[in-house]
């Protein structure tokens, strides 16, 4: 969690300095969800992530240096600078990708789970999504297929109370659990600020999925401390009160967990992590930018070369 927090703090600075172009959707406040869930996964298990994906990607084991290099658009980035914040992927670590379309990753995760089931690999796939995705049709279609075919898939809903400016209560008739129940999926609601609680919920559902008991839903009640996206800085939005934010900050997942770790231990970890982030920043900064003439590389896996554009005449 500390790694994610430090990574995001640094990323926010780099957005300010312009080293990161386009801004980010900070995960600050929600770290316990990614950390708790991914701690319950095997290295060969897989995840899909969201527009707010840095936490998931780091928790699943991507190299922070290559992740930060990706956000800075460098060739050494996870996606060679082609994906950026909303598309960071690392297949080698089981990260099938952040996804910029709300709900869009769930069926991709289900397909990977279907393949794992078919091959009998014992892999489990976790798909992270926000409360806003609870109203996206394709996610609901996916719950039906996952239940029908008993896929080794865990749906993790990060309910942070808002979809951009829209309160969950104003957008969701019924509930996350109710949606899961409609398709026969068991669900667990968990305190998303407590990494231990998240982990135990994840451990049991992942174990069940691995043993063939089928998919489940975990609804993690959490909160984002920062803006929906860094552009929010430029515009004043009144969709939530400072008082509400302060109340939640008192349950900072890092403090809750930190209190469980002896101070010296904690300081050692913190120091380590600062070093990791500094190294990551140095790595990103010193890495080369991609060459514009390679702008169309990887467009077609088969190597087909598209016509037009400056890249090739």
């Amino acid at each position, binding site marked *: 969690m500390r790694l994610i927090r430090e990574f995001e703090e640094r990323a926010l600075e780099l957005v300010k300095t312009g080293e990161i172009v386009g801004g980010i959707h900070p995960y600050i406040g929600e770290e316990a969800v990614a950390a708790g869930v991914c701690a319950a996964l095997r290295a060969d298990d897989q995840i899909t992530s969201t527009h707010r994906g840095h936490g998931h990607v780091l928790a699943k084991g991507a190299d922070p240096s290559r992740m930060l290099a990706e956000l800075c658009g460098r060739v050494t980035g996870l996606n060679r600078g*082609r994906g950026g914040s909303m598309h960071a992927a690392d297949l080698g670590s089981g990260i099938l990708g952040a996804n910029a379309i709300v709900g869009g990753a769930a069926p991709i995760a289900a397909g990977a789970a279907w393949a794992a089931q078919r091959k009998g690999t014992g892999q489990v796939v976790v798909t992270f999504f926000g409360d806003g995705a609870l109203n996206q049709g394709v996610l609901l279609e996916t719950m039906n297929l996952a239940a029908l075919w008993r896929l080794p898939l865990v749906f993790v809903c990060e309910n942070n109370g808002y979809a951009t400016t829209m309160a969950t209560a104003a957008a969701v008739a019924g509930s996350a659990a109710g949606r899961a129940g409609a398709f026969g999926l068991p669900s667990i609601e968990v305190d998303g600020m407590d990494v231990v609680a998240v982990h135990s919920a994840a451990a049991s559902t992942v174990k069940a999925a691995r043993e063939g008991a089928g998919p489940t839903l975990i609804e993690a009640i959490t909160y984002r401390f920062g803006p929906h996206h860094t552009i929010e800085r430029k515009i004043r939005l009144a969709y939530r009160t400072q008082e509400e934010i302060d109340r939640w900050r008192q349950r900072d997942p890092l403090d809750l967990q930190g209190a469980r770790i002896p101070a010296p231990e904690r300081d050692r970890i913190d120091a380590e992590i600062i070093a990791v982030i500094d190294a990551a920043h140095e790595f990103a900064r010193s890495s080369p930018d991609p060459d514009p003439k390679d702008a169309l590389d990887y*467009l077609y896996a088969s190597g087909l070369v598209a016509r*037009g554009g400056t890249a090739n005449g």
Partner: protein
Amino acid sequence: MAKLSYAKALNRALADELERDPTVFVFGEDIAAGIARLTAGLAKRFGPERIIDTPISEQAFTSMATGAALAGLRPVIEFQIPSLLFLVFEQIANQAHKFSLMTGGQVAVPVTYVVPSSGSREGWAGQHSDHPYSLYAHVGLKTIVPATPSDAYGLLVSAIRDDDPTVIFAPASAMDLREDVTAELVPVPIGSARVHRHGHDVTVVALGHLVTEALAVADELADEISVEVFDPRTVYPFDWAALAESVDRTGRLVVIDDSNRFCGFGAEVVATAAEELRLIAPPRRISRPEGAVLPFALALDRAIQPGRDQLTAAIRAVMK
């Protein structure tokens, strides 16, 4: 003399129509907060019955607008990102667009779909940088890409008043353009082009934010080549009569197009010109590459978009 921004012009057009016509209302995400600027201040002024924040259920609320239109209302929908027009392709192309003919003229579907930041937004990468106006023109939606604040105002007003479903793309790179508005803002008819700069050597067809690029290139080349900058303003229906008038004078044609090359807007203009107009030199297209996906890194993102250097080279080529 007031400076009007493109974003503000869209906002004012929507406000004026909401004021004028009680059947107009808006569906969209975060529109009460007005983060995309199109609806800034409108929730306060018109209330939650006219400015409706929707859950993230684009397919449902897009067809809800169709149903509301069948009941005599004039819905406007704001789409936060251009690729949402992929998500609702069924609802617009297969439902809204087809209702009039399929019912034998029993109904009209006067819905206006607005994308207040289309195309590249620098750093929004692969899934948030599309410019799908050629797709909508192909299926037959009235498709509009205004270039200036006053055109943005006048075309949005006309779109809302039009009896057919209409899509308006406001390029992200145009949203901050400012214009000295001297005359009163008026509706601009759908399907009528505008010549921003007269010239006699070559006609450059440009849309939206690329009009600015075309004008800049025309300036640079002014001493050697006289460039006419032709802005159709509406992709479909296209103002062929006006293009014919221009090309009759210049005899040469270059099209710059921010959609993908293959079966794009540029292809249509060049094809129709080749079939119907008298060209004294082969026409040229500048566009995004075939099947373009915008990479994240800024230098790559820009390399995929049609640019001034290409346009300059194309103009020189047709003058050879």
